[in-house]
């Protein structure tokens, strides 16, 4: 018996080892192939690059699974990516080259923190995971270089123009510290719809396919929405035999789409564009109470998913409505419909909630400063090279390469300057068909996005034609978005991005109050909606919010907003 156990153990060990070496053979073959390619390109570039100054860059090894398999930025760098080759050629033309340290996304924050403790070893890095306090501390210790110094003294003019009078000027206003200098460079998106500067909206969506199935019109008021959602359950529109059709929205904050119909912003504090003031939904008595009462009604009737398992419910075709980007077309495939049926059709909508209050949506700013930030570190000694990189990042050529790629390879351009992405081809062509280049978006270089919203709408409408709506596609989705663009009205999707960088004092003060305040706000809202707390004690809740520092937070954010003007 002992002997047979030993034999079995040996066989199992042998099997596992043989599987590993079988896998490793292909790994070795692939990596040696790519190493050979890399070596060849290094030999070529070394002949030409003996004058090139290396800039050490640390960032995230961005990945896309758009093509059905995982493609990393490192695959582009080590392989035969034409896009990467173009980028390196452009940089070589400016006398610089990039030496990359690419880290996987889940590990990047830890690597940043440990590198900060042990000493930075790069010239340019993605500082997105570092909070403001850490960045301010780095500035104090001289670990970050002022970008102003680079564009003022080491630029050929491109970066100077970009940051003083171009698209970078607004981020200088918002992100400059007390000394008036900018220390990190954000990704910038400028969205344009036929001359209107606008970003993408987020809204509450309802299942239009279910409305059509039951012969119901699009709800125009919250009461009509309630009726429609009830009908979905009563008539068992998903055919499950149970009243399981529910909406999926966050209960703990005001970013639900529905709250915006009641005239409420998404966060604990938000910017009111008309008055230029910082407001809090909690102080908008009539509106917030109306919202809570409405949500309570939905919950009591069993129309809201309170299980926090929205992914599962989507797959089970139980979601009758949800809050998401109005420009999305990726939620529909996640909802499993009956075989032969057209895909789910999520239509964004607004509904009148309070008479006299115009229902609104959440809207990205036309000029967006992303939370993805990049900085030159104190290790960067060659500021002329830094200036060359900054100049390149400020050019339209870089923006075009990152957003569209290479003409006649990843996109085509007609005589009128309209660009269309190519949808078939190699992996990188397929990636570029839907996404920007892998080196932007929280990777190694900041994005300079010039988003043609009109082109985006065509794509959205067309997407529906492949999902069972051959006549009009998702045109009604596109129409909703056009209406939002043309009105230009909406609450900011990211209120924090409207504000200037806090001073150290503001940071310390808000840090001391924010955690408890946000936790209390989230718990209070959730419990009120679920009926675990009563609206009768409203005054005590407001007193608690004041005691926890809501007024102080509003004051701090108002000062930050005023500095951006």
């Amino acid at each position, binding site marked *: 018996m002992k002997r047979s156990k030993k034999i079995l153990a040996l066989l199992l060990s042998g099997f596992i080892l043989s599987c590993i070496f079988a*896998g490793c053979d292909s790994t070795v073959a692939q990596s040696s192939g790519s190493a050979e390619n890399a070596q060849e390109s290094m030999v070529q570039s070394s002949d030409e690059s003996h004058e090139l100054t290396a800039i050490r860059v640390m960032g995230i090894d961005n990945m896309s699974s758009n093509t059905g398999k995982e493609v990393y930025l490192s695959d582009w760098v080590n392989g035969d990516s034409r896009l990467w080759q173009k980028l390196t050629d452009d940089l070589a033309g400016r006398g610089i080259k990039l030496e990359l340290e690419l880290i996987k996304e889940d590990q990047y924050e830890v690597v940043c923190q*440990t590198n900060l403790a042990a000493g930075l070893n790069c010239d340019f890095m993605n500082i997105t995971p570092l909070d403001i306090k850490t960045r301010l501390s780095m500035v104090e210790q001289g670990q970050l270089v002022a970008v102003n110094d680079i564009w003022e003294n080491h630029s050929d003019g491109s970066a100077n123009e970009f940051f003083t009078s171009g698209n970078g000027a607004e981020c200088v206003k918002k992100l400059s510290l007390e000394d008036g200098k900018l220390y990190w460079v954000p990704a910038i998106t400028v969205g344009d719809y036929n001359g209107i500067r606008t970003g993408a909206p987020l809204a509450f969506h309802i299942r239009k396919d279910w409305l059509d199935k039951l012969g119901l019109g699009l709800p125009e008021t919250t009461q009509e929405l309630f009726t429609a959602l009830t009908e979905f359950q009563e008539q068992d529109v998903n055919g499950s035999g149970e009243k399981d059709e529910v909406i999926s929205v966050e209960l703990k904050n005001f970013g639900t789409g529905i709250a915006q119909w009641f005239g409420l912003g998404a966060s604990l504090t938000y910017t009111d564009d008309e008055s230029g003031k910082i407001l809090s939904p909690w102080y908008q008595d009539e509106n917030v109470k109306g919202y809570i009462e409405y949500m309570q009604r939905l919950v009591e009737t069993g129309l809201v998913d309170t299980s926090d398992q929205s992914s599962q419910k989507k797959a089970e075709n139980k979601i009758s409505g949800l809050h998401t980007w109005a420009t999305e077309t990726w939620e529909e495939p996640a909802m499993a419909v009956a075989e032969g049926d057209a895909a789910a059709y999520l239509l964004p909508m607004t509904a009148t909630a309070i008479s006299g209050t115009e229902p609104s949506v959440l809207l990205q700013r036309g000029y967006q400063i*992303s939370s993805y930030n990049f900085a030159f570190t104190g290790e960067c000694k060659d500021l002329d090279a830094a200036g060359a990189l900054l100049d390149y990042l400020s050019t339209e050529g870089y923006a075009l390469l990152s957003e569209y790629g290479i003409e006649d390879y990843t996109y085509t351009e007609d005589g009128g300057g309209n660009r269309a992405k190519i949808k078939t081809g190699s992996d990188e062509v397929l990636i570029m068909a839907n996404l920007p280049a892998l080196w932007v978006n929280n990777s190694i270089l900041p994005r300079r996005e010039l988003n043609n919203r009109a082109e985006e709408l065509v794509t959205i409408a067309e997407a529906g034609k492949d999902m069972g709506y051959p006549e009009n596609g998702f045109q009604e989705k596109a129409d909703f978005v056009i209406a939002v663009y043309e009105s230009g009205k909406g609450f900011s999707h990211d209120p924090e991005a409207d504000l200037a960088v806090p001073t150290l004092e503001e940071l310390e003060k808000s840090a001391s109050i924010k955690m408890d305040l946000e936790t209390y706000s989230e718990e209070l809202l959730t419990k009120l909606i679920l009926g675990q707390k009563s609206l009768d004690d409203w005054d005590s809740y407001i007193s608690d919010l004041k005691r926890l520092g809501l007024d102080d937070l509003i004051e701090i954010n108002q000062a930050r907003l005023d500095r951006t003007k």
Partner: protein
Amino acid sequence: MNANRANHIREGNKAVTALIYILAVLIGLVTLYPMYYVLILSLSEPTAAATMQVYTVPKGFSLDSYILLFKDSNMWRAYLNTLMYEVPTTLLMLLTCVLAAFPLTYKRLPGRKLVTMFLLVPMYFSGGMIPSFLLITKLGLYNSPWSQILPVCFSIWNIILVKSFFSSISETLREAAKIDGANVYQTLIKIYLPMAKPILAVISVYTIVGVWNSWFNALVYLPQEKWQPLQLYLRRILVESKQNITAVLDPAAAQEMVKRQLSNAQLKYAMIIFTTLPILTVYPFFQRYFVKGMMLGSLKE
């Protein structure tokens, strides 16, 4: 009489035995069911796995996620890395434990008490993560596979275990060996080591399991994927599946995240089974050493 009245439950009481069996079965089910649940999810049809409509037996049968896993060369690389760390770490652990413990068994060793205390202090108090990181970096081990082997190839607790075991071996054996002309090394190799097989097996088993399950050191010290172990790879897949889509500020990035989460939905279950399979397979052979290890720290009469 009073003592008899106080103890109503006699040994072998059928009712109590039945109750204990029922409790044991329930605890066993509660412990085993999550693992079984992951197994049946990994073998079910992808749609059944995504909707989690699987409770007792797999719904449909699909090995797609395992096939996807088997084709992933990064996963095999991580597997090989883990095995690469297992062997030297275990051997070095045994070496350090034996070489540190054996001299401490000599009662007349000068400074023995001092050395023992020197070993005990860091067992209770450590410098923390930042000093450890600085030490590893200054030693040039950052981004090196040796950062997974050297810092964990010794354990003061294991040294104490081995020392206790060696101390339980009769002194007369040592004296007899000395009389026969054996030097210190020969005494260790030919007398003590053959008798220390049980304790060495215990330490080996605990080290192997510890290294197999470890991921945090790799997260901190290995930024490059090519040296990362299997558990870190598993963690990566699990972390990606939990990200909140609406928290992403860019629609294109949100779309990418949804695609990744959908494709990883069943993959993570297959990955969990695959990473625990070796330990599950070898555990029956080493169970007695696990049990023995737990008892080793207890008092002896």
